[in-house]
């Protein structure tokens, strides 16, 4: 068995342990309803930040339209489960596929733009998606879509999250992922080495959009109602904050970023008037002292102490 497969098994094993502990605590009532909901949201946010990291962190393309893809997945998902009574899994996959298709269609022309121009174009596209949804009466327009079945359970969010992390991790470690990283490091040099830059940018963008769509589906089935105002560009900013806070191009960073951001905003929920002020200050201070994010470009497994533990624990 090669190392990549071994690492996957390790990740799955670790995931199952974490899952069992959390699930146990939930059934025993050690985690109240408020924190249970927040654990759901943390898992969904990890999916979103990991998929955005693939675009922004690994491929180096500045996308600010993630909430738009999430909205597409959410709305396709809820229409399929509520109006057509599709099974949840199929609805999630269909939502992801719709977001991926849109991501691919949008990515082809816009990924020619670079840097800040791409950022503002994707931000605009996200807003256009939201405004179009707001004007479709079939899905409730600005008032929102109501009567959604509550299908998202803890195993769903947790294992979809685990699946996302494994896919993103293996993609990044594959030939395609290396091509994406090459584009991030230097687009011209990558092209000179024979990397088809447009192709890989669109692939990364499409995969990112697909997972955003799936996360949207999970998010929508957590509550009984969704409306377009949950998917504004402020949400895209939020996911960007998670990615940058954790560290661009670090998957463990994305997990940490999603966790920290969601945790801070949940913990401050009892002081609504100071919540955003403290959050803003935390953000600014973090950027002062860790401009590269919590993890920088490093994964947790590459940090010295863990490497040393591995060496000591190794039999060979």
């Amino acid at each position, binding site marked *: 068995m090669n190392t990549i497969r071994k690492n996957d098994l390790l990740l799955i094993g670790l995931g199952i342990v974490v899952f069992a502990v959390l699930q146990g605590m939930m059934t025993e009532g050690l985690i109240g309803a408020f924190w249970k909901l927040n654990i759901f949201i943390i898992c969904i946010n990890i999916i979103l930040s990991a998929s955005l990291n693939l675009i922004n962190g690994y491929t180096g393309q*500045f996308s600010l339209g993630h909430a738009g893809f999430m909205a597409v997945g959410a709305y396709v998902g809820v229409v399929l489960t509520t109006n057509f009574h599709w099974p949840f899994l199929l609805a999630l996959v269909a939502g992801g596929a719709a977001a991926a298709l849109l991501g691919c269609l949008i990515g082809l*022309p*816009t990924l*020619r*733009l670079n840097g*800040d*121009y791409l*950022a*503002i*174009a994707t*931000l*605009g*596209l996200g*807003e*256009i998606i939201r*405004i*179009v949804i*707001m*004007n479709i009466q079939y899905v409730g327009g600005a008032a929102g879509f109501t009567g959604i079945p509550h299908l998202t359970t803890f195993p769903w969010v947790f294992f979809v999250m685990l699946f996302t992390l494994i896919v993103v991790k293996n993609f990044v470690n594959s030939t395609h992922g290396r091509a994406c990283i090459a584009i991030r490091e230097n687009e*011209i*040099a990558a092209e000179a080495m024979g990397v088809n830059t447009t192709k890989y940018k669109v692939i990364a963008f499409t995969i990112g959009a697909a997972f955003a769509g799936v996360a949207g589906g999970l998010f929508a089935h957590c509550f009984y109602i969704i409306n377009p105002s949950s998917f504004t*560009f*402020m949400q895209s*900013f939020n996911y*960007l*904050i998670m990615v*940058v*806070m954790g560290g*661009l191009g670090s998957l463990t960073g994305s997990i940490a970023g999603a966790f920290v951001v969601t945790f801070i905003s949940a913990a401050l929920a009892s002081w609504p*008037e*100071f*919540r*955003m*002020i403290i*959050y*803003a*200050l935390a*953000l*600014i201070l973090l*950027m*002062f002292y860790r*401009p*590269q*994010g919590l993890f920088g470009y490093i994964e947790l497994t590459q940090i010295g102490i863990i490497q040393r533990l591995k060496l000591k624990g190794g039999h060979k």
Partner: protein
Amino acid sequence: MDFASQFVQQLINGISLGSIYALIALGYTMIYGIIKLINFAHGDIYMVGAYIGFFAITMIHVSIVPALLISMVVTGLLGMLVERLAYKPLRQAPRISVLITAIGVSFFLEYTSMYFVSPTPRTFPAVFDNVSLHFGSFMVNGQQLLIFGITFILMVVLTYIVQKTKIGKAMRAVSFDVETAQLMGIDADRVISITFGIGSALAAAAGVLVGVYYNSIDPLMGIMPGLKAFVAAVLGGIGILPGAMAGGLILGVIEALVSGFISSTFRDAAAFAILILVLLFKPSGLLGKNTREKV
């Protein structure tokens, strides 16, 4: 009202809205031109400007022009303070961290003002009797004339500062190449600080004018116009002053026409759609120069 006169009427409304976008966009484009930062807090600086104008009129009972000047000076200083405290320590940091800091500053300004002035919208006092001039079947009201006049004066002053004065020359030099400018003896930090001051003062003027035009201000009023102004700056070619002016006016006119003839719910979508179309065919904006990327 027939089609032609309705068109002209929407055009007038569009130009007044566009002038406001242009004023905010100028600050965006100047700051971007000089330190390559999308200053997402700029929309909130505009909101603060509107509130300072509001308090100047209601509390110290000055008329509109002194209120405008007070607001511009105070907000200009606030912009310099924000730059000094939040962006200057990050001069060597990756650009994306500065961007996240800008988002943080934006949240900070929004919610701190919400804490101090309460989230409910305030009615901006009527500063002068509503006069309106009728030209045939369409009309221009006093507020619109005020917007045209102030915007025109500010743009002339800004063009003079940037093109003719010593500090303007230094600003152009720094935006061209920071390191070389420093080698020529220009104090880049001072120039950047002044750029933030001027940009914030322009945004404050826009804020006061919006208060006069729409009669209502609230702590989150800066989000959408801030974003639109950035769209305007990119539309015209970011970093180029006439581009920001043109981009703002075009955006305002398009929005007015779309909300007048199609539907006001689509006006934001129209603004973004136009932006994307322009970028696809001319990636550096309408007035931007196509620069070849060098290896």
